[in-house]
């Protein structure tokens, strides 16, 4: 199998679109069901995220007057493509893509693209609510990226290389624990969950930055979010969970770890109220900064 085919398989089938979309829907259903059960409700049926996306695919697309049609329709496509390509780099067991030197940098860059798409979607839509959401998202990304990037860079420092396979093979130590905690600190804001659901605050600014989107483009944004949830949980599992020599066991461990992380993050989301933007920003630059400094110091001490 030559390189082009292995990239195509990785993006389209495993661990790309064909695997990530159903897993993303499963994980979104799990989060919604857990929130409902914690609130004493029954919660949505199992296929709910799938039905939501299929219904949106069958709806009309309304494009507001005065909006650049090309950018408006391209943003959701770019978002899905970037997040799927990012997932194809993650060295899940059986991933056909060869490990490249510096693919950690590529991964981190591709993970920023959906955030950028959301910000642009808010500004392109010409809706005042969309613009407020885009501004909030942009400022929040400056905050949560500090602990998020430091957690990955600390592991790269330990491995001495910016290669995903090398990150996976770092001997397990206290830095893993510190970096994992720093990563978890950034996770709720990256997933736009409750104490940091500032950019998609439905009671304050009606909806998130895709307020003007409808039909298939909105379905693509929903799909992009589902794949992003898979990407974040599997990235956590691959980098911070110790690997066993058996690939099949690894896969099961990674999936279970992903579900557990989601459960914890959802529990936090149901038990907390939304912070203001300044509070979230201060939290990430004070406590996130402190955690980042401790993690980086630990990599230097060893």
């Amino acid at each position, binding site marked *: 199998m030559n390189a082009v085919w292995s990239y195509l398989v990785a993006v389209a089938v495993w661990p790309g679109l064909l695997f990530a979309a159903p897993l993303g829907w499963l994980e979104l259903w799990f989060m919604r069901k857990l929130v409902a059960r914690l609130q004493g*409700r029954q919660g949505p*049926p199992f296929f709910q995220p799938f039905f939501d996306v299929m219904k949106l695919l069958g709806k009309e697309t309304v494009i507001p007057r005065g909006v650049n049609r090309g950018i408006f329709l391209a943003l959701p496509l770019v978002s899905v493509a970037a997040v799927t390509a990012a997932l194809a780099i993650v060295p899940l067991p059986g991933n056909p893509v060869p490990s490249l030197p510096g693919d950690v940098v590529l991964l981190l860059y591709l993970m920023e693209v959906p955030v950028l798409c959301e910000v642009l979607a808010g500004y392109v839509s010409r809706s005042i609510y969309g613009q407020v959401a885009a501004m909030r998202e942009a400022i929040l990304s400056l905050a949560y990226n500090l602990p998020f990037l430091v957690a990955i860079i600390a592991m790269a420092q330990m491995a001495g290389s910016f290669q995903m396979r090398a990150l996976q093979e770092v001997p397990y130590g206290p830095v893993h624990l510190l970096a994992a905690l720093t990563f978890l600190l950034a996770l709720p804001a990256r997933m736009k969950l409750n104490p940091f659901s500032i950019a998609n605050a439905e009671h304050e600014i009606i909806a998130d930055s895709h307020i003007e989107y409808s039909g298939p483009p909105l379905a693509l944004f929903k799909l992009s979010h589902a794949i992003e949830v898979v990407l974040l949980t599997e990235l956590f599992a691959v980098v911070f969970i110790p690997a066993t020599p058996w690939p099949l066991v690894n896969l099961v461990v990674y999936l279970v770890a992903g579900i557990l992380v989601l459960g914890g993050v959802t529990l936090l989301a149901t038990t907390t109220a939304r912070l203001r933007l300044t509070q979230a920003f201060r939290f990430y630059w004070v406590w996130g900064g402190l955690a980042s400094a401790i993690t980086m110091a630990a990599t230097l001490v060893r």
Partner: protein
Amino acid sequence: MNLIERVVAISRRRSPWICRLNAGSCNGCDIEITPLLSPRYDAEQLGIELHGTPKHADIVLISGTLTLRSRQAILDIYDQVPNPKAVVALGSCPSSGNVFAGSPLVLSCSLDSVVPVDVWVPGCPPRPQAILDGIARAAKLLEDGATKSQLAKSRLAGSQPESRCGRLS
């Protein structure tokens, strides 16, 4: 009807997203919508989600007496909802004006003469169970392609007579 169309049709019934529109209501009907999202009635079991923007909605819940000032807002918001869409009229006010009929600036006509209404939920205010039933009926109509806007689209364009009710001049 091929397989994908069938799946999309079923999805329309299983995932109705709603949007509230207060056309001059006393807030009684709106307060009765809130318990739908609470643990007792839990509308999420039917896939119902409350959205703030008409762009994301499938079903518009219109409550309240029609007034001279809300008429254009109803038309604008109805136009913003992407097809296919359904309208549910909540309570007695949209159909008759209820106790406000004959007051100044209240339109003395039913909501049906402004936008096509698919389901009427009677009551002043209707019980939450009745509202839930109305939404489920509208979702079933969406699946069958039998809402008035869907039928009008499948017939010749412009066959729906435009009403002059409440129009100024």
